[in-house]
């Protein structure tokens, strides 16, 4: 590896088997306080045929072993806390630790969703303030905090559209989705009962507005648009797009995955968007946690408000807040209880920390992306030349000539101490390198990343093998994904299986 690269060096980490392999009968890591009521006989209380003997293979280990096991596993992960995570479309920004602290407070983490609402005013005020902040940021009229993630928000948004159109007599048949969209968009449209019509981007990667005029017919319910698009480019003709849809009675859905480019700078509500979701685990910094949990609030225009999912947060006389479980036109419940409350709490904490200054975060995110774009232009091909917002998409066209693909470059980036960027997405760019630095990276970290990317470009040209066989410094080397899918091993099994008596 190039000695001038300051970021990464070798380190060791420890081997660790599966927790089941460390188990030994009689060990335990948890003790309960003694039982203070008479012992019930399970066989008598449950009936012999309901009673379970024991759980074969369940771990039996001590507390220190549990702690070490998971601590060792944790050291095999990359994380934002370790460095830049330039995953395009994922907005991997700093997760403030105070948000973890407040989400665990007594009176926040301890509250039961069915406790009396007069004893839940604190929870409801948090939800209310978050609603207000998100409405101000999006420029929309109404919101639901119920959805548990972005895709769940997409579904909620499309069900709102469907209910609105149904109320007018016809839910319509099709949803238009650009070829650059996230995979969740088409998958969601199907769950909402729509047929998907994929539409081709024009040569600059934008929606082909002239073609759209023909594509929007009387059976189109909505267009799902991502803005900025997954190319990181602002969809400049979005107000015109909204007009085309509205003229035919269709609605404009905006995937808010890229809201980190717009917060405080422009508002989707002002651009003609009818309904959108936000990914609080992206733009509003709630931790990704290895894949979740998230939250996907859906903000909408007035016309969709009557259809919001249950329960609905309302303000009663005297300022008392309540969650109402019934509304005649509601699409119904999309999830039990009151949304992913603990995630919503963290997002509000993030917003309060910035206040109106959240605009600065947007500016820094766009500044970082453009800085990286400028420095890497030439080393990597830029397939679309329109201005970048919060992320930049290159392609591996130059490196392909020496047989090096975006995936190889991504894996080599690991050796340089970075998490890879998003590979092979969006689908309209063959061999895409999708880079989103977020505002959380200092100039120094951006420079380290640029150095690494340039060094890899040089390696690809001069010694491609080292790139193609990367990573070289990780605990495991490239893993056999084909084998994993062909003969799936999806759980641990004991070497000598015992039978479970009561089963």
């Amino acid at each position, binding site marked *: 590896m190039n000695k001038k690269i300051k970021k990464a060096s070798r380190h060791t980490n420890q081997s660790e088997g*599966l927790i*089941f392999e460390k188990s030994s009968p009689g060990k335990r*890591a948890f003790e309960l306080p003694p039982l203070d*009521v*008479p012992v019930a006989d399970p066989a008598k209380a*449950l009936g012999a*045929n*309901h009673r*379970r003997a024991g*759980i074969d293979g369940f771990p039996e280990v001590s507390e220190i072993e549990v702690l070490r096991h998971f601590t060792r596993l944790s*050291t*095999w*992960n990359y*994380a*934002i806390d*370790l460095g830049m995570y330039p995953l395009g479309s994922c907005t991997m920004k700093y997760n403030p630790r*105070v948000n973890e602290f*407040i*989400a665990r407070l007594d009176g926040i983490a*301890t509250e*039961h*969703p*069915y406790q009396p609402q007069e*004893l839940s005013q*604190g929870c409801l005020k948090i939800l209310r303030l978050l609603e207000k902040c998100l409405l*101000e940021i999006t420029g929309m009229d109404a919101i639901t905090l119920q959805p548990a*993630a972005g895709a*769940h928000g997409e579904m909620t948004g499309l069900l709102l559209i*469907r209910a609105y159109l149904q109320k007018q007599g016809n839910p319509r048949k099709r949803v238009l989705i650009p070829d650059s969209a996230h*995979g969740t968009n*088409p*998958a969601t449209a*199907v*769950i*909402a009962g729509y047929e998907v019509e994929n539409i081709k981007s024009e040569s600059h990667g934008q929606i082909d507005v002239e073609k759209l005029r023909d594509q929007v017919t009387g059976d189109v319910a909505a267009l799902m648009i991502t803005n900025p698009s997954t190319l990181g*480019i602002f969809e400049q003709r979005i107000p015109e797009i909204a007009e085309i849809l509205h003229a035919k009675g269709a609605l404009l859905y905006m995937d808010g995955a890229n809201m980190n480019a717009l917060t405080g700078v422009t508002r989707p509500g*002002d*651009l003609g968007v009818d309904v959108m979701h936000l990914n609080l685990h992206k733009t509003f910094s709630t931790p*990704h*946690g*290895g*894949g979740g949990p998230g939250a996907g609030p859906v903000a909408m225009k007035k016309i969709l408000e009557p259809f919001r999912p249950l329960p609905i947060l309302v303000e009663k006389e005297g300022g008392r807040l309540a969650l109402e479980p019934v509304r005649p036109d509601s699409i*119904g*419940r999309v*999830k039990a*209880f009151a949304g*992913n409350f603990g995630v919503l709490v963290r997002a509000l*904490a993030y917003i309060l920390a910035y206040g109106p*200054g959240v*605009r*600065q*975060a947007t500016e820094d995110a766009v*500044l970082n992306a*453009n800085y990286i774009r400028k420095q890497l232009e030439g080393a990597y091909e830029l397939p679309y030349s329109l201005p970048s917002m919060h992320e930049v998409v290159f392609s591996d066209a130059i490196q392909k000539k020496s047989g090096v693909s975006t995936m190889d470059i991504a*894996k080599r980036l690991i050796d340089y101490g970075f998490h*890879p960027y998003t590979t092979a997405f969006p689908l309209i760019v063959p061999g895409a390198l999708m880079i989103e630095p977020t*505002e959380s990276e200092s100039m120094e970290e951006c420079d380290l990343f640029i150095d690494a990317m340039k060094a890899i470009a040089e390696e690809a040209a001069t010694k491609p093998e080292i790139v193609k066989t990367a990573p070289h410094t990780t605990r495991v*080397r490239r893993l056999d994904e084909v084998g994993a899918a062909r003969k*799936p091993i999806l759980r641990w099994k004991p070497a000598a299986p015992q039978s479970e008596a009561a*089963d």
Partner: protein
Amino acid sequence: MRYLPKSPAERQEMLAAIGAKSIEELFSSIPDRFRLRATLDIPGPYSEAEVIQYFKDRAAENSNGYTSFLGAGVYNHLRSVVTDAIIQRGEFLTSYTPYQAEITQGTLQAIFEFQTLMCQLTGQEVANASMYDGSTATTEAVLMAERLTGRQRVLVARSVHPEYREVLKTYAKNSGLRVEEIPFTASGTVDANALQAVVKDDVAAVVVQSPNFFGVIESYAPLVDVTHTAGAMFVVAIAEGVSLGLVRPPAEADIVAMEGQSFGLPPSYGGPFAGVIASRDRFVRQMPGRLAGQTTDSEGQRGFVLTLATREQHIRREKATSNICTNQALCALAATVHLTLLGKEGLREMAEQNLSKAQFALSELLKIPGVRRTFDAPFFNEFTVELPRSVKIVNGHLLRDKIIGPLALGTPYPQLTKHALVCVTETTTRAEIERFANAVKLALERPI
């Protein structure tokens, strides 16, 4: 701003490198008339101390200091501080979905362990990496059964959590699924005769919950045979996972949909929790959500990857088995750590304490004149009693004694007006149970 790592001079330097005169120039692609000129009307900026104070003030407006007898899908259980210590490690907390397997082996191995634990608990052969919660897991289980059978009629026991059924109906409305409900018997169990009368070869799934919403443990035998005879999938929802420490798992089910909240996750006003789908190996290709699988690297070492991704939306788009992408990974990790801490003996003992405390609470309540048990079938840590007076009025009196009373069943089940769903876990002390029973007694003795 403390979260932003740039000095004003660095911002200028970066702008200069880009060749832009101002930050405004970088936003030139946004038409001028849509550029926000006004300052956002949101509170802040708050220092860390102010953020903490805001939430402490809100916390003080909630139920601090009250003893609760609520369950109904969200349970208070003991949690070791070790769980939070682990899941707050930045390497887990701030890591992304483990698509880059070489640098996310920690998350991947933990998911593999989670899948194994879920199989062991439920008696199933394969479990996924998590769904949003028990309600959406139940719905996704039904959608999976629809794909497996090619049928569109679904029979759901009325004793399944009312909110789970509502979520299912929301999804069903637009996908052509027809949802019908199966009544419960005087014992509180699914009415097997009623099921037999309507289950036909057009039914995709029969959905029951155990312990059901009334806390009653279902007997699967009379239900599963008629379901399978009709060629339908037998789907079991589990809202209280701790029951599996003591109660026989639904090994005969085709799909199990479970809520993992009881495994180390705080109530948190309803979320985030961790839904689980577990099933048979032969159905795995129709499962929704992520799966971690074991494999080897190019040097033959054991490692783990996300696998069978051709079921998922990022590959299959409109042909995916589900639209789920982000799941509840950190909650699943918490459940993994918690269950590992509890271990075989700890989980059994916790389940036994729940059973004993609930039995004790029932016997205390039955000493009160006019209070009687609604259903006589076996229960785990929740049971239903009928009061001689409105549950809401009794609960109103209990609040004055800082007791949050049991759930009134009259709203979800109009025929169960005056019936209450009482939940007691290992966290409820004998003294609290006695104080509760006494307060109920006094409330019932008060003149109307």
